[in-house]
């Protein structure tokens, strides 16, 4: 073969950080080809998609509003992914957080208290944790695959929200529209940048990322998470409690997703509606990988992915491109990232194999 992969003696640290950049460049190139095929001017489309949305202060604020749930959920998920615990159901945990937060807001509809917002956010965290506790319990107790159980609960959560919003939570004066009442001011998150929609939730997300980073770097739990992901046998010899980590990572990621849901309804949305998220819980999976499962990286990746949402809206308005372009961009980015990651453990060699390089050793890699 003319092009082949040669295992590196040691995983390349540099490639870990270069690979996301390679992936972004490749995605841009592929995106321009896609725009060309769709019959639009690629440069103009890329401008509408990636530059225009953030050319105003309002746009930048909107970018951070959209990045908030992505960072919260992405940081939470990255903890579990490091331990090979795959919570794929963050979208469902977000939905439950929105329901719980929304129920508190509507239950105390006439109450004006500074405690209302904290109560809503805590309720959201509890909702997300409860929803994540199901796959955690089933995995810890019965060794049931958490990917499938957490994902099934996403669909259940959508149906639950749909049931509540067409019944108990529906606005009594809303002409039967499937929407709740608009929250009162004391149930809406304060704005931190006057004249925009940027709310305090963004700071909460940043704080959560810092706390998670401290836990990963400084705390024994963070060490255990990393060991169990890289060498499960070593972890069990060292006496790390695998079940405890299953519970911990799922509850943290579920709680973070629930918090994101409560923040969405009390921040940008301001009421409970049938669809509270444009797939933040799934996009956060890409955010976690793109951010290298590192909380600081997740902040940057979250902001970048938020741009794809804004870009989709902007391209739809200015160039009449379908909004679905967003999903395609996100999927392509993850593809290119996973492909570039091969360079972390292998290097590309051109030319035929020389005999003395042949080793009987085989690299089984997972």
């Amino acid at each position: 073969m003319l092009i082949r992969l040669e295992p590196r003696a040691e995983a390349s640290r540099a490639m870990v950080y270069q690979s996301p950049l390679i992936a972004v460049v490749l995605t841009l190139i592929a995106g321009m080809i896609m725009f060309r095929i769709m019959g639009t001017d690629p440069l103009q489309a890329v401008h509408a998609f990636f530059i225009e949305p953030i050319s105003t202060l309002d746009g930048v604020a909107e970018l951070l509003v959209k990045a908030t749930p992505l960072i919260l959920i992405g940081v939470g998920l990255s903890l579990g992914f490091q331990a090979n615990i795959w919570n794929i159901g963050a979208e469902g945990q977000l939905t439950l957080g929105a329901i719980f937060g929304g129920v508190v807001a509507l239950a105390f509809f006439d109450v004006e208290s500074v405690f209302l917002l904290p109560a809503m956010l805590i309720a959201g965290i509890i909702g997300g944790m409860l929803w994540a506790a199901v796959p955690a319990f089933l995995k810890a107790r019965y060794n049931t695959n958490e990917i499938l159980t957490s994902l099934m609960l996403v669909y259940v959560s959508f149906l639950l929200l749909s049931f509540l919003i067409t019944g108990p939570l529906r606005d009594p004066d809303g002409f039967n529209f499937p929407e709740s009442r608009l929250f009162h001011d004391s149930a809406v998150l304060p704005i931190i940048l006057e004249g925009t929609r940027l709310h305090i939730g963004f700071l909460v997300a940043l704080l959560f990322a810092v706390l998670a980073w401290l836990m990963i770097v400084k705390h024994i739990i963070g060490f255990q998470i990393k060991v169990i992901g890289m060498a499960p046998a070593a972890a069990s010899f060292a006496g790390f409690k695998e079940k405890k980590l299953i519970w911990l990572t799922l509850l943290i990621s579920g709680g973070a997703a629930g918090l994101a849901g409560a923040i969405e309804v009390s921040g940008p949305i301001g009421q409970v509606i049938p669809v509270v998220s444009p797939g933040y819980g799934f996009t956060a999976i890409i955010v976690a990988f793109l951010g290298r499962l590192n909380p600081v990286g997740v902040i940057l990746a979250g902001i970048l992915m938020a741009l794809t949402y804004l870009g989709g809206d902007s391209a739809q308005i200015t160039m009449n491109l379908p909004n679905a372009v967003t999903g395609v961009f996100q999927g392509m980015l993850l593809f290119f990232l996973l492909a570039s990651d091969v360079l972390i453990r292998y290097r590309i060699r051109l030319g035929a194999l020389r005999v003395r390089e042949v080793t009987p050793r085989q690299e089984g890699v997972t």
Partner: protein
Amino acid sequence: MIDFVVLVLLTIITASTPLVFAAIGEIVVEKAGVLNLGVEGMMIVGAIGAFAVAVTTGDATLAILAGALSGLVLAFIFGFLTLYLLSNQVATGLALTLFGIGFSALLGNGFVGQTYGGLPHLDIPILSDLPIVGQLIFGQDILVYLSVVSAIGVTWFLGRTRWGLAVRAVGENHDAAHSIGFSVALIRMGAVLFGGAMAGLGGAYLSLAHTPLWVENMTAGRGWIALALVVFASWKPWRAFFGAYLFGGITIIQLHAQGFGLDVPSQILSMLPYLATIVVLVLISRDDSRLRLSAPACLGRSFHASG
């Protein structure tokens, strides 16, 4: 009453067929040692691929082929990344689903609201007019028959043929299979492509026969349910076939709830297939030793031969 039972049975067949295709395809993939979590993505792309061709050409055969081909193309991306670039199979499968949902929405943008007449049904004089069995057995469309044939064919292929043995060998012990001269990557690629085409057919059935329309996200988690069915069936095609019909039966409860005299909100009834999937997974995974015996030993592990 008889009419009602026939109607229920017909809808069970309709609800089960997409699951049969996707699960049987994924069994071959996993038997080869590859875990492709992108079934949902391949199904949804198959659905829009088939529907787009059906609406533009009006040719059912072409539409079915387009569905299979769409799933296959997506599977090729997955195969290339995991088998040749050795990417993580779980992450790549998720990427395939995320990409598939976005890509299908983009492709389907121009097809929202269009209609298609549905696949032609078999019509044999006399036989198809028989009471009860006429419609059920002799009056289905080609994909329903193909789903049955595929279950039997895959059972035969995996158990009785040389290439079936090669697929299983690669899935059980890729080092040993490699050392006796099998090309692990090529055999796995073949299995992945087959799985993609089957998932594409499952999607095609959804948009051509189940609800002959294009709706974004119309697979609604069926790809994931198919993945659960594979575990439920202990990687045996005939068990996956019956498992799919069991799930099809649960899915249609909400359609006929009023006929059964149930008064439960439709959303609660719609949760049943998803909740049933969880229950079934718990029941299966409780028996850890049996699961470990039936799962392919190299499932989800990458293979790279240095040389």
